């Protein structure tokens, strides 16, 4: 496997493309127009330079990586890759359209992967004639730094496809965990109570946000739930919670908390809006 294509040059797509470029792959980066692609490539190159400045990346590796990109607005152009990783917005119809197009133009052996964090791999694979060569490769943000990749096996994903996805992720310096195609996979699911119980406790006035954060940090967590929600964004946190709740057909234990919605409705989104559970000076 030499060439990787990444569909979408947003935060996740760019991070995955960067990780692949630094792992000696040729990278075809796809997005809707040249301006978006040029801006993404600049961000990626700046990020690679930062890695060199911090001593994390060898200058020779960085130079090769920065020259490894081909930018394209044509999905057909992506068909020459051995592995295509889709990192488009989390909309099932959009992903199915992309996968159907890729399936029609890519050779038999090409593996089609999705970086979805919330949609079913089997549902995406059903848009293709090669469900055995469709797989989930779920990276974590920032993808060029975070060490984990959840590998999601759809109903028909073959062992060979799992092995190829694992080999790519490990070559890119990641640790993989295998997960069945179930809503929210491992991490986003098991992490729900970290936020959900904290919000309930706040609502029950068991303690204030700062006290809950302090106690949780004392248990060894790097951040408390409320400072973490402020960092992620209350809107993003609510959207993830809502999607897990819906994906499990409104299973009560995943239900979002009214405090979350009130924060979003009142524009208290966290760090990015200057105020969430805490206030931030701009």
């Amino acid at each position, binding site marked *: 496997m030499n060439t990787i294509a990444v569909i979408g040059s947003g935060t996740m797509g760019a991070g995955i493309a960067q990780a692949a470029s630094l792992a000696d792959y040729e990278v075809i980066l796809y997005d809707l127009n040249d301006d978006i692609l040029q801006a993404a490539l600049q961000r990626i190159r700046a990020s690679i330079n930062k890695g060199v400045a911090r001593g994390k990346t060898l200058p020779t590796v960085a130079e090769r990586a920065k020259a490894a990109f081909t930018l394209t607005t044509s999905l057909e152009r992506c068909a020459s890759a051995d592995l295509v990783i889709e990192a488009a917005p989390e909309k099932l119809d959009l992903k199915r359209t992309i996968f159907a197009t890729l399936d029609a133009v890519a050779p038999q052996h090409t593996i089609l992967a999705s970086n979805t964090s919330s949609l079913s791999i089997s549902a995406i694979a059903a848009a293709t004639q090669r469900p055995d060569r469709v797989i989930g490769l779920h990276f*974590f943000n920032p993808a060029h730094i*975070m*060490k*984990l990749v*959840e590998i999601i096996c759809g109903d028909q994903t073959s062992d060979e496809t799992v092995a190829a996805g694992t080999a790519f992720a490990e070559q890119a310096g990641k*640790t993989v*965990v*295998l*997960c*069945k195609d*179930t809503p929210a*996979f*491992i*991490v986003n*699911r*098991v*992490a*729900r*109570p*970290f936020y*959900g*119980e*904290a919000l309930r*406790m706040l609502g*029950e*006035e*068991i*303690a204030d946000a700062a*006290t*809950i954060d*302090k*106690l*949780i940090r*004392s*248990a*060894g*967590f*790097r*951040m408390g*739930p409320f400072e973490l929600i402020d960092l992620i964004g209350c809107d993003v946190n609510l959207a993830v919670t809502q999607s897990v709740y819906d994906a499990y057909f409104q*299973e*009560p*234990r995943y*239900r979002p908390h009214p405090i979350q919605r009130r924060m979003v409705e009142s524009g208290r989104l966290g760090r990015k809006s200057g105020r969430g559970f805490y206030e931030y000076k701009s």
Partner: protein
Amino acid sequence: MKIIIAGENPFVETVYHLCDASGHVVDAYLVENFMQAVQSGYIIENLTDADVVIELHHESPAAKNELLLLLADVVPQNALILTSALATSTTQAASWVPRPERVIGFGVLPPFEEGGLVELALGLNSAESTLTRAQSFWESVGMTPVVVKDSVGLVRARIVCCIINEAATALQEGIATPADIDQGMKLGTNYPHGPLRWADYLGIDTVLGVMRGLYDEWQEDRYRPAPLLRHMVMAGRLGRKTGRGFYEYDS
């Protein structure tokens, strides 16, 4: 001060070391040994001059009730009674003993560093002076008290055990292996321990006790214990202390 500790590991050994290192006179018992010793009568005398009682039992409310009542009956009337509020509220535990004003709930979650935080919660019948005495006691062993509202599990054990319960549910559904679930949570969200290995350390009986306590308190589906946790307790797979939980351990 003379301190009596009774309950389950790793809680008993953790709190014992804390008190012992601070120069207190400490007697610590695992609950099964304590009950046996009481029946044979020989430790009753040892309890009659205790200043502080620390009860750390989470496995079942009935057993906790029996243990607390026994302790409260034989220690001096003015002894401070600290009950672990992980699987019951302070108010519930205090309701089982005469003179509930001397009872206050607390929460620790091993492993913790020396000089960590201890959660304290007043029951509806706890006296304010009991809180003052409890704060002084925990400070004397190098811990910093944080007062929270009385509730099952308090803050830390409630969040951690609900995460463990979700991980156990996911495991029971076969979505991933225990090692991959733990690895995912450590690398994907920077958790200090994988939830299943953490459960093995805390004791599956304690984790199940916390979930049962939460479920009993709120009667809500979100606190329903994973059947796998119940099965593991029935099978004696309590984690590190019995050599087998989600993982196996050399004794």
